[in-house]
């Protein structure tokens, strides 16, 4: 934590010292972005199937989903590298669907290191400004400010191959910000980095995005990244948005079984629907979360997160401990239920120590409403 705090403080100081010009132009200048009914096919594969999404000015929205769900296609259509078969992209109320990428004023950070190998960090950052015909002196001054903003002033004269992956991505971020973009697009910018650098850069990107107020669309397959950075997260599947919500809502109130299982860890426990509002499982009857079970009856799966299940040592209980994973203050206990289903239960480590493998335990549902889906 000390490390991260130090980094943020340093970045903040740098921004105050040198980011004035950038902030003046980009700060609070984030434009609203609207994707309306976007569809795109590649041969027989339908990559996008009627995607609609509104992003507020200055908001960071993450598109999250498994490989092939269409999130990168959506980002590339917004960037102008692909055109949608149908649907529109609007920025600040103006449709840009057919505007070439070079004229969209969108900054982009790519997954792979995209710095120009023949240019120094300073020249890379200044490239967009050069394309905008800025004089060399102004260009270098502005590029220097941006490098200062990402804490890489001392790397200005270095070539990409002389920098680490994290440094290259920070230069790429500075390069994208240098053109004072109306929208910032991030295409899995952290996925090639090691865990520690990824965590630090994640915080730096979020910090800069909030300070500059740039509307940002961020594509990732890493749910931790999405949930920790984004104002809202859109979970995609088969070219469609399953749900768009703030991270806490996405986790606590997933709209579909896919979202519930994709975001975080989710157990499926066999249950039986009783009337409209209740379900019986693990020997108890609990209320059903209203939005997830329309029209379901009979045998169902009850979806419940590991931290929501309760566990207690009980001879002759409904399960046996089969595995334990230490996670710090909690331990994730795997329990084989009498019906042959294994569930994961998060339990305080101090108490889980009393549950060695083979211990008979009683697993029970919480009293609060649970999610219900079709029996698998």
């Amino acid at each position, binding site marked *: 934590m000390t490390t991260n705090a130090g980094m943020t403080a340093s970045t903040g100081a*740098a921004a105050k010292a040198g980011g004035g010009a950038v902030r003046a132009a980009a700060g609070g200048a984030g434009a609203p972005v609207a994707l309306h009914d976007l569809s795109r096919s590649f041969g027989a594969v339908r990559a996008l199937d009627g995607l609609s999404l509104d992003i507020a000015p200055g908001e960071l929205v993450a598109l999250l989903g498994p490989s092939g769900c269409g999130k990168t296609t959506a980002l590339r259509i917004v960037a102008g590298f692909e055109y949608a078969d149908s649907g529109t992209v609007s920025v600040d109320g103006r449709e840009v669907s057919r505007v070439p990428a070079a004229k969209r004023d969108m900054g982009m950070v*790519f997954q792979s290191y995209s710095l120009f190998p*023949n240019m120094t960090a300073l020249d890379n950052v200044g490239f967009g400004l050069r394309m905008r015909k800025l004089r060399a002196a102004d260009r270098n001054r502005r590029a220097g400010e941006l490098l200062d903003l990402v804490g890489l002033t001392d790397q200005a004269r270095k070539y990409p*191959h002389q920098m680490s992956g994290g440094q290259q991505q920070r230069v790429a971020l500075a390069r994208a910000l240098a053109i004072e973009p109306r929208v910032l697009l991030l295409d899995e910018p952290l996925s090639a980095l090691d865990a520690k650098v990824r965590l630090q850069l994640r915080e730096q990107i979020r910090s800069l995005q909030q300070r500059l107020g740039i509307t940002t669309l961020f594509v990732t397959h890493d749910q931790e990244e999405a949930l920790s950075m984004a104002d809202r997260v859109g979970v995609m599947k088969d070219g469609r948005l399953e749900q768009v919500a703030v991270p806490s809502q996405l986790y606590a109130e997933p709209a579909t079984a896919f979202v519930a299982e994709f975001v975080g860890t989710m157990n499926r426990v066999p249950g039986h629907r009783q009337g409209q509002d209740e379900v019986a499982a693990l020997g108890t009857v609990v209320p059903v979360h209203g939005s997830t079970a329309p029209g379901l009856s009979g045998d169902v799966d009850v979806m419940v997160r590991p931290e929501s299940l309760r566990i207690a040592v009980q001879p002759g209980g409904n399960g046996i401990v089969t595995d334990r994973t230490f996670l710090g203050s909690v331990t994730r206990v795997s329990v084989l239920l009498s019906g042959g289903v294994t569930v994961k239960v998060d339990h305080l480590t101090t108490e889980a120590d009393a549950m060695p493998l083979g211990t008979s335990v009683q697993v029970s549902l919480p009293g609060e409403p649970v999610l219900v889906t079709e029996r698998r």
Partner: protein
Amino acid sequence: MAAVADVEAGAQAPAPATRPAGRRRSFPVWRWVILLLAGAYFLIPLYAALRFAGLKAFPDIFRQAGFTDAISLSLRLAVVTTILTLVLMVPTTVYVHLRLPQVRRSMEGITILPIVIPPIVLIIGVLKVAPGFLLSTPYLLALVYVILAMPFAYRSLDAGLRAVDLKTLVEASNSLGAGWPATLWRVVLPNIRTALLSATVLTVALVLGEFTMASLALYVTFPVWIVQFEQNSGPVSVAASLLALFVTWLLLMLIVTVGGRGARKRGGAQVALFTVAPRETGQTTGEPE
């Protein structure tokens, strides 16, 4: 930020060399034997030619009738052919890599045709169908040489483009506001400089050495002049051949030196005339550290 710098600097530290020093220096006897045999195979004929011509023949080359015209024509043809080849092949190869990757195999097949078809067939066909205004100018040869150079130029450029993440570089350039001309000039070309130099020197070497087509089209290029002059003075003719060989060798050295300097500056490990591009297993995303 210092924290980030520390972490990343740590990650950048090179791994210590683990190979024993003794093994690096070892060079088995059989390798020396092969090296000497190969060296003898190439150098003995050159030495014999030099002995036959004698050093005095070299100054005489420049005083011979027709030499200046022949070398001048060959150099002009080399310049025109190289420019035409690069102007045609660079955008084509870039376009194929970016937009039509599925036709790359076909392109490899098509571009090898000039090697398969004998030059004599090509030039006779061209002389039959070329319009009159082209038949009256030696630059007709430049147009044909572009086709002859295509296999070498395409392969050099193809290897150069495969060695960079072209798609990402072009898209990054576009997203920063650069149109196609600026992207090509400021981003693509500087990053395939070695490939451009390879294509250039191969084209130049081909033009400076081509005999059949020039001879049949009745133009006295440098190789044609050497053959014609051989009937007057054998030693001077052989000296001229050695000179041509030396000039070509100088060009190769120039590529290795200039290309190597640029590649070292940008982090390239090695410069070779014929780069073997990595097999395409996806975009390059490896960490340098």
